[in-house]
């Protein structure tokens, strides 16, 4: 996965967050931003707009697909759905992130010897 250019996040984190968000149900762009903000608290400091280049990357990689639909407020929006490939990638990423966090946690743990 190509790295994201900006933000305080680890590279690729935004994409993983989008994939996670879409795991349950297809959503449009604004809804994805809302969910990520709700779930991660203030972790996603970046501007909402940065969501869109990340979505394009996921589209190119074939991990999500997009279709025009209608929002709950009857607005014409693009709705993103996780594809089978995206699901596979998500589980790979989950394991990878898990390992990184484990590693970081181990390093960060104060020395006990």
């Amino acid at each position, binding site marked *: 996965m190509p790295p994201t*250019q900006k933000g305080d996040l680890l590279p690729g984190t935004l994409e993983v967050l989008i994939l996670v968000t879409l795991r349950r149900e297809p959503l*449009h*762009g*604004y*809804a994805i*931003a*809302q969910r990520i903000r709700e779930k991660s608290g203030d972790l996603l400091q*970046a*501007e*909402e*707009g*940065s969501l*869109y*280049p990340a979505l*394009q*990357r996921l589209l*190119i990689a074939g991990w999500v697909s997009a279709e025009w639909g209608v*929002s709950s*407020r009857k*607005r*014409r*929006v*693009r709705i993103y759905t996780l594809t089978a490939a995206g699901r596979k990638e998500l589980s790979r990423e989950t394991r990878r992130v898990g390992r990184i966090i484990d590693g970081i946690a181990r390093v960060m743990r104060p020395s006990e010897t």
Partner: protein
Amino acid sequence: MKRILRYFRLGRFESDLASEMQAHLEEKITDLIAEGSEPEEARKRALRDFGNRTQVAEACRRQWAFTRFDEILRDFRCGVRALRRSPAFTTVALFSLAVGVGTNTVVFCAVSQILLRPLPYPSPDRLFAVWGRSLSRGDTPTHVSAADFYDWRTQSRAFESLAAYAAWPMNLTGVEEPRRLETQLVSAGFFSTLGVQAAMGRTFLSDEDREQSPFVVVISHKLWRALGASPQIVGRQVTLNGSPATVIGVMPAGFAFPSPQVDAWVPLTLDSQNRSNREGRWLAVIGRIKSNRTRRDAAAEMDLISRRLAAAYPATDAGRGVLLVPLQEGVVGKTRPILLTLQAGALVLLLIMCANLANLLLAKGVSRAREMGLRAALGADRARLIRQLMVESSVLALFGGGAGVLLAIPGIALLRSFGDGLIPRAAEIHLSVPVAVFTAATALVTALTFGLAPAMQLSFFNLREQLAAGTRGTPYHVERKRGMLITIEVGLASVLLVAAGLLGESLAHLLSTDPGLRTDHLLTLRLTLPHSGYPTNATQIALFERILERVRSLPGIVAVGEISETPLKGNNPTFEFALEGVPQSPSHAPAQAGLRVISTGCLHAAGIPVVKGREFTSNDRAGSPPVAIVNQTMARRYWPAEDPLGRRVRFREDQRWMAVVGVAADIKHMGLKADEGPVLYIPYSQKTQEWLAWTTLMVRTAGDPMEFLPAIRTVVHGIDKNQPLAEVGTLEGLLTRSTAIPRFITATAGTMSGVALLIAVVGIYGLLAYTVAQRTPEFGIRLALGASSRDIGWLVLRQALMRVLAGAAAGLIGAWLLAQSLQSLLFGVNPHDPASFAAVAALLVLISLAAAAIPTRHAMRADPAAALRAE
């Protein structure tokens, strides 16, 4: 592909993105208002949280635009820029690519379209030329007698059909200017054997070659156009040799058998006497083998028939056999070795071009490797770097190959106009796309293979090492590779040089050959009398003499003569004759000599010296004792120890003895390459052959021969207004034409080898200049340590010499092995001529020393102090 489609959908994507972002903002504003914000406040906050929309859109677009297609476009532009940055490299590379691809395209088009493409007839592989041959003379094809042909046709089972043809020029009159037609007498099955139909009307019916059949003619597309291209031509009457003939058909435009010159075909109608003649061998025969029979079947059957005929007619057919030649080969004939030689030369040139290109790319690769290393260190993707190099090489190959194909277009036009009349099927040569693509692809493969070298080195070399080496330090193996390529270039160039040298020597030999007669200021034109107007020897002789006298009295005419066969043209009808006092033994092949019927003053007019005795005079009349003149070869062969003057000879079928009154010098009647063999001259005034109703008028003029043509035409038409003047030209022109092909081959080989040599020299210079630049500090140190500048010079020179000598040695050995295949193109030169080989070796050493001179001087002037400072 999908990516490319996506790329083109970019326009739609942009409007989609805009409305998507708009929806995002509106949703957010709605939420914020629902949470209690003022609408204006909500809008501002939504915009602020979203960030710079233009930047977002740009970032999104970049995600899409960074697909491969776009990158290839960018690489392409990059490649073009890179090539423009190093003009010397680009010029040399493009030049060698263009020349290599261009020559190969031209030559391979010619080879494939002349040699390889089947004749344009159905099942051409079943078509054969069926020649006679004398078993004692091996595989020299001879014509076939009419009686033998008809016997073959009746007895053969392996052939579907056999047909005979013979050139028989006829005069077309009743049109503005009477013209001589290149007419072929053909047996009725001629067109059906070839399997061709008329474009208009029909061809001959199976009984249209009977003696009583009405006189019909099939005309060529060319003649049809010349006659006004009337769509109603079929059924029209024309006058051929004074007799009315009905045009029954017009052949399609491409049909040109047996030669592109042919104007018309008329049935071969023979009376019973001619039909049963076995002595006059004058027919060419073609046959179509049955689909269930092989060439071997046909050959075995023809052998059997020949033996049967030999037993039945031992006087004429003993010792005679048959020779089957695929018609394709027959049509292409002598062009084959010429084209194959050119093709071999072009291929060698292409190899040199490839080696040169490889050399250039390797040299460039050394500097590129460092750049690549740096970029890789800075985080560039390896695949991406490789792709860039590939694209750059492809750009080079594309432009070079494209230029080569463009170069091939005028090249083919040149070959076609040159080959008109000299090379069979020359008109069929055209630029073939597969051939062009194939040769251009060779360039591409070379460019890719060697252009990738710097990227490949990335995997072999430690990056840090690469960078740490700084601006010097060439990987040793690259230099060795370049050295090897130079050796290969020199080797290939020396093969071409030897070939060019041999061909040049042969041409010089040819051009210095004395034709045996004076070719300057000699106008020749051919007169063929129609049998209807001039049925007897007396009428023919009278006309020839009248023309001779009238032309002789024209102002500015130095001398005039008439001869039955134009010198240098190659026509040499031979006859069997008997010598007085020499008994004919059946075991001996009968004596043969070429026959020339000449007028009084002919030898003088042509400048053929009479070495003994006298020329014919006006006293040698029809009623006076028959006389003959022989050439020196004939005199030597048949009267080696005696004086030929006064000896008598006669034609085998004629009881009349002719006394030899003179001996003429041999001339190169067959063209400069061949001797004419024994020749018997007899005077027109005493000729007994009624069929021999033609002559070549030879007029020696005071000024430009062609200026006298109108006056001569007026004279001839004043005597017979229906008499066409054919084959008008000068003997000098004929001589030039006879050497056209050797001159063309030599010029081509010379150019090819010159280019090859130039490239080799540039290669040597480039390599040495580069190594010297690299090793200057080393040389400086050596000098500082007490080496003399001569030692340094020798160091550099030795490098060049070793490579050149290795290449030259390999090349000369190769040339020695290949030289034999040039044999058929050489005249008077031994293909292993030591002088040519030695000259090439000397030339190569001299040229390479010259190429090495400048870099060597640079090396010798290396400044020790500067070198040490630089370290």
